[in-house]
């Protein structure tokens, strides 16, 4: 369970997150909102790249904001980025192994854990191939494998389906939906693709101009008037 | 500790040296703000110009002022040429890469200078300006006109450049480009022309600095090429942004360097002055933040 309490982030004169208070219960949760609503900022706070002006985050009982950023990954915060960041000159195996070797887990289980994560994503490529030879959809799966290897506690997925064709998106949806049951982690998915969000997330929260405007079961939230107004604008 | 009177001549020479460092520093800062390039070849072009001026006046018998004009013209031309040739190719790269590229230019110039004006053979060259001979006395300290010019040039150019940047159209364009080159281009500012102006201006300042330093310090390719590091120190303390801070830092560096001369225990270390000041300045200033290049903040 993740409890966010009064989280506020300011860049110069802009307030990216405005006293956001929200609780993520379990499973895969969606986080949507128009561009500039503060979703990536929220992820940046959780990853430790941005310091909030005010507020607190408790993840599984631990005060997340007091941890140094690289320690959070060790603790179990995993993240994918809007522009995918798999390391090109390393192999698929090395990319995933790198996350494992910087976590709390030891070397004995490494090979098994890494191959398990790769299998989980359904990536059909030799783990020894260099990532630079892979296509966009495959690279996204490598990123997901990096996010689920070992014992993650919080998996943050930032627009993982961006730029992918439909069949790869539906495969990705399947994978994302199964993350909590496979790893025991809580997953938060940010995306603009509503069918993806509906397919994976039991609950969804909506941000607009840094404020939380709705949260609850996904189907209900997507029909909420306030949400539709936020996306389409007031007439 | 030597008596005060021993320090007096060094106050004057220190201020003069600081003046030239300030002049160089301002040139470096303005170019950086307009193009993102830290022009490490600044000393080398000044050295090249000074050596050409020397050859013209002592070997070809040309009058002094012709030599100076050629010096400034060559320095300006080489700098402008480099900017036009390599500026666009590297425009989108990291400031670090752009600066390292100017190291390439430095090496080329250095090789050319050593080839054409070899230092082996023990012949020491010197460049004297007619203003070395005249002067006046202030409180029993001798001051030559060259030293006055050096300090005055530093002051005038700092004030002048600041005014230029703030009040002229070209200056405002340069400040806009320092902020964001692409957006400035979309506003209809002739970006290429503004950049060319910045390169040319920096080159001209390099030529002037080269002449003054050749006179005040030594006419030697190595010395002059690497003397840019002292101006770099001032520019670093100003974080490549403020002209005023550059000026003050440059004066302090010049003064401190020369004032250490009469102190027997420290005099052989005085060449460390710019390095130490820059290092301390950088580390103190970076205490609270991780410093990134101002043009390329993530």
């Amino acid at each position: 369970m993740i409890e966010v309490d009064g989280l506020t982030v300011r860049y110069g004169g802009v307030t990216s997150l405005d006293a956001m208070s929200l609780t993520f219960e379990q499973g895969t949760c969606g986080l949507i909102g128009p561009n500039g609503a503060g979703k990536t900022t929220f992820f940046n706070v959780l990853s430790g790249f941005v310091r909030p002006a005010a507020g607190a985050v408790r993840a599984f009982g631990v005060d997340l904001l007091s941890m140094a950023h690289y320690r959070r990954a060790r603790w179990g915060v995993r993240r994918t980025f809007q522009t995918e960041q798999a390391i090109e000159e390393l192999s698929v195996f090395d990319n995933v192994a790198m996350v494992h070797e910087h976590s709390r887990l030891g070397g004995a289980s490494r090979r098994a854990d890494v191959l398990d994560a790769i299998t989980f994503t359904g990536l059909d490529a030799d783990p020894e191939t260099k990532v630079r030879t892979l296509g966009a959809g495959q690279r996204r799966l490598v990123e997901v494998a990096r996010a689920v290897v070992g014992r993650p506690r919080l998996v943050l997925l930032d627009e993982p389906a961006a730029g992918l064709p439909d069949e790869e998106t539906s495969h990705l949806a399947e994978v994302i939906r199964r993350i909590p049951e496979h790893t025991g982690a809580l997953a938060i998915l940010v995306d603009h693709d509503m069918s993806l969000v509906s397919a994976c997330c039991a609950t969804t929260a909506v941000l607009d101009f840094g404020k939380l405007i709705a949260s609850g079961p996904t189907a209900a939230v997507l029909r909420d008037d306030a949400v539709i107004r936020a996306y389409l604008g007031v007439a | 500790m030597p008596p005060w009177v021993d320090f007096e001549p060094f106050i004057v020479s220190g201020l003069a040296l600081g003046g030239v460092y300030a002049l160089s520093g301002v040139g470096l800062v303005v170019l950086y703000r307009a193009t993102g390039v830290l022009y490490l070849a600044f000393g080398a072009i000044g050295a090249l110009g000074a050596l050409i001026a020397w050859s013209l006046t002592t070997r070809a018998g040309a009058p002094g002022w012709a030599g100076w004009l050629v010096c400034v013209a060559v320095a300006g031309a080489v700098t402008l040429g480099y900017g036009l040739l390599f500026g666009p190719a590297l425009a989108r790269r990291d400031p670090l890469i752009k600066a390292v590229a100017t190291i390439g230019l430095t090496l080329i110039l250095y090789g050319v200078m050593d080839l054409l004006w070899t230092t082996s053979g023990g012949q020491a060259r010197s460049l004297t300006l007619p203003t070395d001979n005249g002067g006046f006395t202030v409180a029993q300290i001798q001051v030559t006109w060259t030293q006055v010019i050096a300090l005055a040039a530093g002051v005038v150019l700092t004030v002048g450049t600041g005014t230029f940047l703030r009040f002229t159209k070209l200056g405002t364009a340069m400040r806009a480009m320092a902020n964001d080159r692409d957006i400035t281009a979309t506003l209809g500012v002739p970006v290429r022309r503004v950049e060319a102006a910045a390169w040319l201006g920096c080159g001209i300042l390099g030529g002037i600095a080269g002449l003054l330093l050749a006179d005040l310090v030594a006419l030697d390719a190595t010395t002059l090429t690497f003397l840019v590091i002292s101006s770099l120190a001032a520019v670093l303390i100003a974080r490549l942004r403020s002209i005023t801070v550059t000026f003050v830092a440059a004066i302090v560096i010049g003064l401190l360097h020369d004032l250490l001369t009469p102190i027997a225990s420290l005099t052989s270390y005085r060449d460390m002055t710019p390095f130490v000041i820059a290092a301390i300045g950088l580390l103190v200033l970076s205490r609270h933040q991780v410093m990134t290049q101002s043009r390329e903040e993530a």
Partner: protein
Amino acid sequence: MSGTVRATLERASPARIARRPTRPQLIKASVTTVLLLFAFFALPELLSLYYIDTMTQVAVYSMVTLALGLLVGRVGLFSLGQAAVLAIGAWAAARLLFATTQPYPLVLLEAGLITMVAGLLIGLPALRLRGLYLALITLMLAGSITVVLATVNFPNGGHGFLGYNGGLLHIPPIRRPSIAASDPAYYRFSVVIAIVMFALVLAHIKTKPGRAWAAIRQSEPAALAAGINIWFYKLWAFALASFITGVAGGVLAGAIHYLYSINFPTQDSITLLAVTLMGGVFSLWGAVVAGLLYQFLPALLNNWGVSADWLIILFGLGVLQVLTTAPAGLADQVPRDLRRLGHLLGTRIRRFRRGPGGDGA
């Protein structure tokens, strides 16, 4: 379970992370071994003393460019003061060689460690800076070290901490290892040390620090998100590079016997960076190419009576070329060009063999 992943699991043993080498890797390893054996055994027999001394210098400076390449290529740190670090290593080795009777390899290790500590002391505060500022502070610190060394001088057998006696009339030469006193033998010794240093770097690249460096170079946010302590790994690279350069300094001390501050001028740092960029910062062979550019070509030109200044100009042009077009340098570009040439020749030969009256000709 996907087919290829299952195949990987079945191929490998669960106990160790074994990767069967591929054919190109085997070819590369064999070529490397042959070249190294040639360099060690055959080269000293074939060359004159002048060139043997040159090749010793190549070995020394290949280690320096190896360290520089590590910093620039793997971690993105452009050190503008590597000559000063080399000077520290040479100073430490000379001091120990005069003051003690320790065996040479031990002195090299100690010189490397001393230089590493110096590198760490610099790196700890300096690594808070990034990019351009970090490069410039290495220039500033190197300048300071150069001035200090010019004043305190290199050890020449004197007493006291600095080991320098200004009044000595006959300065003793810095000793060499007893089994490698002659020039050809000392050349072989320097080659062995260089191989050890290269192996040390290879060991790093293939394991955890290498992966972390690759991640840091591509994207610091992604590295952070993977749990990598960026500052720690940058410091590690700094320490390793300083250690290797220090060892190189120690080998240099024995090579030239007498050390003066003019052996380590400021422009050397810049030229070293230039040749490192030209040789290529992403491959170990690039460091050797850089060493050859830096020491072998000047010696060659010197022998032919051509001024080495032409090389300085060439290096300047090389920097500009590398930065504007080929970021991976010669060591990457030349094999690629050779392969392309080989491919071109192959198709020409095949077309020729088919001859007139062949299919569709």
